[in-house]
């Protein structure tokens, strides 16, 4: 299949390895990956901070860029959630019904990585190899906005060599929440402290998730503590093979 990658602004600027891993993984599975270079950002930060007027041009850009694509993959649950649950709402708030309809049509073809793999491509064993102790944090928007359920875990369980350990209180938010982490830094940090306690209790070397933003939060805390546990995006684990090591 031909699949367009919406890499997200965060992965583009800070975590290019996540985009690269997504490309490598999908190509290994025999698909053609395209990267429309006119893409920028889904506008979630603007929308969730209340700046809907400022989000509108970003919604329009996303629709313009990806409208002709058959399938769009996003290595982020929350950016997928924004495309699916917020783009049409933003357009309607400013009376642009035509844009809202187009946004809904593109959103219906936009999938978070684990959704794309399991639901669209029908694959749970991607042939990955990752010989490490790993715990998985189901990010809030994957879990409750996309209802991604156990798709990421099904993919991880099929990774060769992996020692997958369950994360206690996994479904509790890590405290990121976009600008919440800045505006309510103290509460955000208190939530992070509990999440780190759970992650460290597993004894995992690696905490993984489908969202670079939450991983940046958890990883930023673990790094500050020199805790000896790293954060790595789900795409990077799924892209790893015996040869790539």
């Amino acid at each position, binding site marked *: 299949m031909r699949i367009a990658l919406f890499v997200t602004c965060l992965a583009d600027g800070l975590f290019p390895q996540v985009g690269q891993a997504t490309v490598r993984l999908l190509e290994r599975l025999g698909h053609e990956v395209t990267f429309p270079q*006119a893409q920028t950002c889904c506008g979630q930060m603007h*929308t969730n901070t*209340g700046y809907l007027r400022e989000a509108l041009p970003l919604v329009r850009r996303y629709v313009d860029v990806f409208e002709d694509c058959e399938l769009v993959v996003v290595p982020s649950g929350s950016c997928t959630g924004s495309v699916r649950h917020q783009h049409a709402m933003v357009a309607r708030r400013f009376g642009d019904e035509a844009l809202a309809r187009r946004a809904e049509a593109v959103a219906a073809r936009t999938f978070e990585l684990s959704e794309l793999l399991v639901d669209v491509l029908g694959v749970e064993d991607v042939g990955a190899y990752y010989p490490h102790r790993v715990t998985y944090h189901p990010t809030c928007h994957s879990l409750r906005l996309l209802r991604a359920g156990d798709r990421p875990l099904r993919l991880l369980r099929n990774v060769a060599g992996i020692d997958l350990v369950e994360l206690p209180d996994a479904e509790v*938010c890590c405290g990121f929440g976009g600008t919440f982490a800045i505006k309510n830094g103290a509460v955000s940090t208190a939530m992070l402290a*509990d999440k780190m306690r759970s992650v460290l209790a597993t004894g995992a070397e690696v905490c993984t998730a489908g969202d670079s933003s939450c991983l940046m939060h958890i990883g930023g805390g673990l790094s500050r503590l020199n805790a000896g546990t790293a954060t790595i995006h789900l795409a990077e684990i799924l892209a790893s093979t015996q040869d790539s090591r």
Partner: protein
Amino acid sequence: MITFLGMPYAPRGVGHLRGEQPFPVAARAALADTQLRRNLGKATRTIRAKRAAVVAELPDWEELRAAGQAIKQHTLARLDHYLEQLEQQVTARGGTVHWARDANEANRIVTRLVRGTGAAEVVKVKSIVTDEIGLNEALADAGIAAHETDLAELIVQLGHDRPSHILVPAIHRNRAEIREIFLREMPGVDPGLSDTPAALTEAARLYLRRRFLSARVGISGANFAIAETGTLCVVESEGNGRMCLTLPDTLITVMGIEKVIPSWRDLEVFLQLLPRSSTGERMNPYTSMWTGVTPGDGPQRVHLVLLDNGRTAALADPAGRQALHCIRCSACLNVCPVYERAGGHAYGSVYPGPIGAVLSPQLTGVEDNASLPYASSLCGACYDACPVRIDIPSLLVHLRARHVEEAARARRVPTAEAVAMAAASWVMASPARYAAALRTGRAGRALHRGGRIRRLPPPLSAWTAARDVPAPPAQTFREWWRHEHGDGDGTAG
């Protein structure tokens, strides 16, 4: 778009809908209270597990939630009709209905009614709405003592404190503190009082029993009012409410106008949803219902005060009005990771937690509670737990947008945040500007040590206070792609 119907918000200077400090400031203080953190963590964890267990028992839980939502939507769309029907039915059965447009008017009505009886004391059923309007203070100003009879409300009242949870108002107190409060504030208490739950309960029981037997006036809120028969309903756990509702000669009920439901068949839905969601019980121990006056049995003078206090203003916002569906179960508080850590006082309103963050700003006007819609990471746990399917995360975003729009209209100079957001939007609306910005961001590499950045200037210093930031990579994704594939999108041919 919001249709402005000219409806007034809850007035300032009366009641408890506005905090003294913005949420982040109040929360920071609460986070340092280790006892509070432990109490909240333990209590919410316990009640979450109980709720999950009893909800899982019902195969039609999702259908019940949908039914609860549909009934509330229907009722709010015909609120005028059902309120007039309720008034008619209550009046026909010997009760008296009063209409209060706000807290001041409701307080005046209740004070006048109590004065009319000549009583200097009243007993109260646990009620959030009377706390919303500051009724106890208004009565005290008129020389009338209001005695809270719910155990937790009693602890809060004797401690000269504020409730911190809708259902468990004294969740922030432990038994040693309760013992101290009782010894200090409860007349005639045994000086050898221990801090065991049984001893504390017995002390409260003896204290309250005297109040029940001497009270001539009872004051309550209402969980539901059934329009078709004019029946009022209070659900509770202790039976103390039942005492207040049946022993005094005069019963005054204050109720928000959104509490009316059309029929008894609708009550059936809510009596399944409410106890499971609030206390994690299949059924609450006491359900009291009364219809006007029954000669020779129970209160012979029955009053109902219907309160607006900003509710019609909330109703005027098509997106915001679903906050009025709330049945005050507090399930959203118990699953909220922000509430669990910050506690109820940080919200500054009698309505804390996720529902408070979307209800209080609508009752007071967003300006007066501007920090509350931001007091959430938008994790969505509240929406999943809500028995009437209030989409709290979307509502929070909607109220943030209202705040931004109203602030932009009110200010001549935009805030630094508004400027930054507009600039980010301008940059990201163009791929060329965006790519240039990413290249500029790479200058941040100068700040890193060992691949991480430990300190950034404000406002990002709020992040780096506790969290590192990874150093920007040598090559962005799009630079890598262009290096690999050139200018194209990678499409073959």
